[in-house]
């Protein structure tokens, strides 16, 4: 659906995107994660056609997005910081967007009134709370019936019930309409629940990009303990991302095939050996640990 190839973007001499490449499969919910300043919002602004890359390509199904209304008309976005015309209500904006998006669904707009019932559609948006403004944005974006929905910190400001409601609507669109959702968020626990693909950004590049299940299979947490007085050397060739000890229990984060790693560790004769799947948050932290992301030790 969306492909970025070797994209470079420089701001005032600083490379915000440094040859970034990524691919968002059609019908996926793609989570874009990364530390602050990694370039997530910059990536999203390229995908929505706001920024123009210095070099590289930003494509939607093979066509460039920048200055391409036929591609842009298929996407809707909800940025982290919303903009609305100062006197406009949700209804005014509906009238506005209706003129741009040929698939704008008025029936859905009416139907979603019930979901977003706390939002007074005739009240100027500037008078709504932050959460209500976000609801209004979702309401309008969903009515555009986009093929691609680009979300930057989408549920920030929403209460837990509304979060669930919104995710449910999104999942429904993905399942029924084949909508692709690209979402950038720091709430990794939430992303873990909804995303099927994840891309981790660091310093303007995609560090790794896989389906969530692949990712979780690739990196495993092992806990092992040896009999007192025994502590054999760990086998060579294991890609150990992290190693720590608490008493006699040693914790290893290993990237690679889980069966192979289990077999090799078992050969050492531990009295305890457990292989545990990693959460997305843990993967994020351990992967970025290799990138000298200093918070790693503090978290551990």
């Amino acid at each position, binding site marked *: 659906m969306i492909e970025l190839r070797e994209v470079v973007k420089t701001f005032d001499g600083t490379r915000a995107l440094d040859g970034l490449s990524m691919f968002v499969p059609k019908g996926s919910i793609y989570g874009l994660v990364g530390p602050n300043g990694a370039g997530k919002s910059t990536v999203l602004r390229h995908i929505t056609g*706001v920024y*123009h890359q210095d070099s590289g390509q930003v494509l939607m199904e093979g066509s460039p997005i920048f200055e391409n*209304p036929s591609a842009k008309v298929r996407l809707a976005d909800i*940025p982290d910081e*919303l*903009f*609305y015309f100062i006197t406009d209500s949700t209804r005014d904006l509906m009238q506005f967007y*209706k*003129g741009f998006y*040929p698939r704008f669904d008025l029936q859905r707009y009416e139907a979603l009134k019930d979901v977003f019932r706390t939002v007074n559609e005739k009240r100027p948006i500037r008078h709504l709370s932050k959460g209500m403004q976000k609801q209004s944005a979702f309401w309008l974006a969903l009515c555009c019936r986009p093929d691609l929905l680009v979300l930057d910190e989408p549920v920030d400001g929403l209460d837990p019930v509304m979060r669930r409601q919104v995710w449910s609507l999104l999942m429904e669109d993905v399942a029924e309409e084949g909508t692709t959702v690209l979402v950038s968020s720091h709430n990794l626990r939430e992303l873990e629940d909804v995303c099927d693909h994840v891309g981790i950004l660091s310093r303007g590049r995609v560090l790794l990009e896989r389906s969530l299940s692949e990712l979780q299979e690739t990196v495993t947490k092992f806990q092992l303990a040896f009999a007192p007085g025994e502590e054999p050397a760990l086998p060579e060739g294991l890609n150990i991302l992290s190693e720590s000890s608490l008493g006699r229990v040693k914790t290893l984060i290993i990237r690679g095939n889980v069966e192979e790693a289990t077999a090799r560790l078992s050969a050492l004769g531990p009295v305890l050996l457990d292989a545990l799947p990693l959460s997305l948050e843990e993967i994020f932290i351990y992967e970025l640990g290799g990138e000298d992301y200093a918070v790693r030790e503090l978290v551990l």
Partner: protein
Amino acid sequence: MRSANWCFNVPFFRKQAKRFWPLWSLYTLLFVMLLPMYMLMQAQARFLGPESLADKFQTYLASMATFGSLWINLFFCILVAMALWSYLYNNRSVSMIHALPLTRGTLFLTNYVAGLLFSIAPSLVVFVLALGVEVFVGALTIPALCTWLLCQILFTIFFFSFATLLAFVTGHILALPFFYGIFSVLTKGITMLLDGVFSSFVYGYSERSLTALDWFGNWLSPLYALQLKVRPVRPYVAEDLVVRPPMEVSGLGVLAVCAAVGLGMALLAYLLYRRRSLELAGEVITVSYLKPVFKFGVAICSGLAFGMMFYQLFQQFFSRGIWSLLFFLLLWAAIGYYAAEMMLRKSFRVFRAGAPGLFALLLLMTAAMLAMEYDISGYEKTVPDAEKVQMVQVLGWQDSKLTTAEDIGGTIALHETLIQQKADIERQSDEYSRNSNSDYYKDHELYSIQLRYTLQDGSIFQRRYSIPVSLETLEQKDSPAKQYDALMNRPAVRVETIFPATYKTENLMEISMNVPDYAKQAPATSQVPGVRFESDPYGQDAKMILSGEAAQKFYAAVREDITAGRLGYVFLGDFHPEFKKINCINGIYFTFRQDYNKTNSVDGMESADTRTRYMEKQDENGKRISYYEQNLDLQITASSTIAVLEQFGLRQGVHFMTVEQAEKSGYLNDPKYYEKYGYQ
């Protein structure tokens, strides 16, 4: 598909029109009040016939089409530009608008057309309403109304395009009106500042003498150029001297060119938009190659403007001269430079990083000032070759146009003396301007003269100098004062200066001369036809007024005396020992009727002879006439003139007298003299 309109987007246009309705509504209301409503009120309030009303409407529409449209559109267009392009200056709005399925071209064209229509559509409405009013009151002026509409459209195109171009140069909404205001008069301001610096430090520099600089100042400051060129005028009517034709608008061609330039600016703005990096919202300058221009431009302008201002302010504490100016110039250039650097970098920590650029700039400015001081170009020492001079105008206290080889040679000799005695003249000028002793000014004068040579190839060469005049300098054989005195008092020069060729004898209307007020006692003294006296009930003098043959006779005598060197002698300073002995207290005023001609009708500031200032008055039938005046002091040596005066019944010592005689008789000292002693 609604969004498929690739070049113009109706929903976006509708949104912009709806968002900013107060702006264009206010504009409409303003012009409805200024045109149809005002015209209706004028028709109701004045009981004029349709023709007079139409004339009033035409005159009013001409001024509205020029000054009215110029100033209102100047302000309105920047407000519209700020409103319509405001989405470019905020990261949130940038992201929202540019994520819409529109190209930048569509956004630009939609907004640009919206901006033009915000002014043009209301103008059309006002045009129709004003036409309705004219039909209603029966005073149709369709050409004047069309001219007004045309001016409205052309001014809108120019000013909105100008604002649009600047909108794409900056990324900050507050910088936009600032740049707009500055660039409207920037080059004129720079020219004036440079003129100020050059006048102070380039010996002989004459303001506006550098044609390229003058052109740069006049034409690249749109507000100045348009105000100067687009103005209401009276059209040329060859024979009609009394009935004023209605006003028309001149400079429509200039305005059309400006509008065309405006369209070019709009195209340039679009090209900038296509390449604009939207992440630069909030930056003062968004075009990278203009950043150094901005930085050094601010530094130079700051140096020139504030440097000159503080130099003038502190000159009583510092010695006048290049070094104190250089100090203030460099100080303020540095302040301007760092201010610009701070704006560009959005940081106060700019001193170290900006130092190399500043150093280079200050070095360059110092070099330029030194080059000026030491006359590297040879400007100060250049004198035109006499053979190449077609004519020279000596402009100053009295303006003369000299064409003979002898006069041109005399002017060049004076010019060379002024150059040779530079140091002495500068010292005396400085002393004159700083001296605080009031007695000093009783016998010292400082004349400023401009020598304007027209060369054989038509080009102009001009210089301006100060000439210190005192009893001492007037007696020195080779002093500039003595040379100037000799040049200006050549009889041929005096005739040409007092009565230039453009003053036609047949246009002489009347001559008046002030005389001591004996008319109170003998109001009908003269029996000579064409001579009458008018007393001034409030003043000391009365007037002798000559007309017809009497005026012609007197005028011929005056010319004869001037030609013979007996009248019209100019004393440089009334402290001249001969002044009181020769000059009389009687001023003579010659009034000439002014012919309408194309030159003076197109632009009131220009005339065939720059020395002439025209005035208007009503004749006995209540109709307006144009005229100009020349005045001259009677001199006791003017034998022919005095003979004519005596024929008219005036007597020396009574009706005309020298300043010395008047002082001795007490006339000049005691206004009540004649009440006490009478005239005998």
